[in-house]
């Protein structure tokens, strides 16, 4: 689009006085969150049968702070023998104390976990930020409170399961193997463990290799809560550990959150077995702005949609669709707003965008940025300096993006937005649904009937209308199509852990 290019050039010419660049005239004074209250041990073992034990593998790997590349701790790497030990402990607990316990008693343990997360919230949020690179504001206000709330919500279900599924007497499955990603480490652990325990199952959980610390802190909390040994086991490790867990014969349920590619492998590995499977996989969500939308709010929604958690969000609004009549205005407002984003030290309370989770992920993002440019899309990045150490990426957007472009089709999992335009409702519905994914979507318009036309026709599990990236323990989350199946959260989140 020629007009876009002109706007972009004009912008560069006037670079000297960007009206909204808050951090130029007056520098923000750093507002660093303290770390003195935080204890990170130099080495962590596996949490099996209620105790921290050395790995059979004898191996350890390092977890680093992606914001500084400094080493944080040495972490045990579980192999197949460790997985077997953990599954046996979980089976023993299922056949023993936990399996025989009443729902009301189970509930009390889960409530206890929730309360203890709240008590240790400040330590947990700092560790989450140190280990994963996310801004402290997000781990403090979103990750940790939501994790505690998730346990609190599901605790209450434990003795009420007969009310959840009419005309059924649901029963637990047994041992659940759970594998979680690095983008919301503690929150994903809560999404997995809380419903599994509420429904009477026992758990072997594997956190991601780049962000194991808060899961290990959760193991300490679980110990402190006096949960019977073996009810929750936490095994650290990488892909091989996860594969051993999926392949173990004595597991009744696999719950996985991660990439669609790995999700398909897991579905294959479980083929022909009786393992129940839920998969929460990738996404490439459309965020759709109509001309009658409240544009300033919509721009906030776009920013939150793609730059929340550095774009490491499976439901990120990574494909922006703007109605042609307001395209120029929205793009100008969006670039102005992007210019105000502060990228830097995740521990700084002013920081909007923290560190990319790992070197590997940063490489992936760079690869896609190169692909976008090669495919002929127009790139825009904010004019900022990134910290010299650590893994950072400038907020990036692409215009002139073809529907077939890889940056519009594939999940990038970083702060990279593609912008496309549309004229009619039917056209944008067609474009929004033209993806193998179907996790989430956003719609911005002031017209109620238009909202529901869109929300009913978009094939996605979560649709945010005039808002984006909102989460709640009572609200079911999960995808259509290749974004996976099963729901986490709400009453619906119980189903994946029960025989109904």
């Amino acid at each position: 689009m020629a007009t876009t290019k002109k706007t972009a050039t004009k912008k560069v010419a006037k670079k000297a006085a960007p009206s909204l660049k808050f951090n130029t005239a007056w520098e923000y004074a750093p507002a660093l969150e303290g770390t003195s209250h935080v204890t990170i041990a130099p080495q962590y073992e596996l949490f099996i049968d209620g105790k921290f034990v050395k790995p059979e593998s004898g191996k350890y790997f390092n977890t680093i702070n992606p914001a500084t590349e400094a080493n944080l701790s040495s972490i045990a790497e579980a192999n197949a023998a460790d997985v077997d030990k953990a599954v046996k402990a979980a089976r023993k607990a299922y056949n023993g104390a936990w399996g025989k316990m009443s729902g009301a008693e189970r509930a009390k343990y889960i409530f206890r976990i929730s309360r203890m997360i709240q008590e240790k919230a400040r330590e947990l949020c700092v560790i989450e930020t140190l280990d994963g690179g996310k801004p402290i504001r997000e781990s403090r206000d979103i990750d940790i409170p939501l994790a505690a709330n998730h346990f609190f919500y599901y605790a209450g279900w434990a003795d009420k399961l007969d009310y959840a599924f009419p005309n059924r007497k649901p029963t637990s499955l047994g041992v659940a193997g759970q594998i979680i990603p690095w983008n919301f480490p503690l929150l994903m652990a809560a999404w997995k463990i809380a419903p599994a325990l509420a429904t009477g199952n026992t758990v072997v959980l594997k956190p991601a290799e780049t962000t194991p610390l808060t899961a290990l802190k959760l193991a300490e909390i679980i110990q402190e809560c006096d949960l019977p040994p073996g009810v929750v086991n936490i095994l650290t490790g990488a892909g091989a550990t996860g594969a051993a867990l999926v392949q173990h014969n004595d597991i009744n349920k696999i719950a996985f959150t991660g990439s669609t590619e790995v999700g398909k492998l897991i579905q294959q590995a479980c083929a022909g077995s009786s393992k129940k499977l839920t998969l929460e996989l990738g996404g490439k969500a459309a965020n759709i702005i109509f001309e009658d939308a409240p544009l300033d709010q919509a721009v906030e929604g776009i920013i939150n949609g793609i730059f929340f958690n550095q774009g490491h969000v499976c439901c990120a609004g990574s494909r922006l669709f703007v109605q042609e009549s307001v395209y120029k205005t929205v793009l100008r407002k969006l670039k102005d707003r992007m210019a105000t984003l502060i990228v830097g030290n995740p521990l700084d309370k002013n920081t909007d965008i923290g560190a990319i989770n790992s070197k590997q992920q940063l490489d992936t993002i760079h690869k896609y940025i190169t692909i976008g440019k090669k495919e002929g899309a127009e790139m825009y990045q904010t004019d900022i300096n990134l910290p010299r150490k650590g893994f950072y990426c400038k907020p990036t957007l692409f215009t002139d993006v073809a529907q077939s472009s890889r940056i519009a089709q594939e999940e990038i999992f970083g702060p990279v937005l593609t912008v496309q335009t549309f004229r009619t409702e039917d056209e944008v519905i067609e474009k929004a649904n033209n993806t193998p994914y179907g996790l989430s979507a956003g719609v911005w318009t002031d017209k109620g009937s238009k909202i529901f036309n869109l929300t009913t026709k978009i094939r996605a599990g979560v649709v945010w209308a005039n808002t984006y990236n909102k989460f709640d323990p009572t609200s079911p989350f999960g995808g259509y199509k290749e974004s996976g199946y099963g729901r986490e959260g709400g009453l619906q989140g119980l189903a994946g852990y029960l025989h109904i």
Partner: protein
Amino acid sequence: MSTNRLSILKTYKLYIGGQFPRTESGRSYKATNSKGDHLANMCWGSKKDVRDAIVSARAAWKGWSARAAFNRGQILYRIAEMLEGRSEQFVSELVSMDVTAQDAKEEVQDSIDRLVYYAGWCDKYQQVFGTVNPVASSHFNFSVPESTGVVGIVSKEASPLLSLVSLIAPAIAGGNTVVVIPSYSKPLAAISFAEVINDSDVPGGVINIITGKATELAPALAEHMDVNALVLGNESDELDKDAILKGTHNLKRIVAYHEINWKTEQGQSPYFILDLQETKTTWHPIENIGGAGAKY
């Protein structure tokens, strides 16, 4: 009239997109009973027939899923009406395929009753399984079941009519469209049932029936990228493993009902509808002006 009048044999064909075409492959197989009677030359359907049926099912899905739930209920009820009227034909067809007279009569009656059962569910499962979620922020948040899309169904050899009806009805009650592989050894009732469907205001393409070998046709359903779910109502475990492996290419929802006895109460429930639904959750902010925020 002459008593030794020559009877008219029926040609059994496929049912695709509301039409009765022959298989594009031109192949046929001999349907026989235990006495060795030659019952019919059935279409030996091909992978290409399956693909054509999927195209029809996808085209029909848009309208069928968007149709008023009440209207879907009326159409399912209409299928039951039509089947009731042709009971005798189905009984004699089943009897010709080795079912005893008593069992055949019961199977046809159960099939009619099952259609009526699911006709009633069409506009009710949403209320049973939908939720309004009390989120902590100022948002209206609700979850509703929506159809998965195009569903491939492999039916059973035993109880050929009742299995077929029990597998199709919950899928279409929930707004899905289907491509069905019926019983190979007892196939007559499936194609006669297609005639019932065709007379019941069911839009073309909502139900498609391809006779042939499940070992050949089920993998074609499983590997097709425009099929969203696979229902394995068949007896064979071998077939399942293969289907699941092929179905992972686009993460199909795969449900297996080997253990279900369709003749019992266990054979009908709204949970069969739910197995082929997705949950959609919608959020919308609630205005928060001039005091306390409203909540649901």
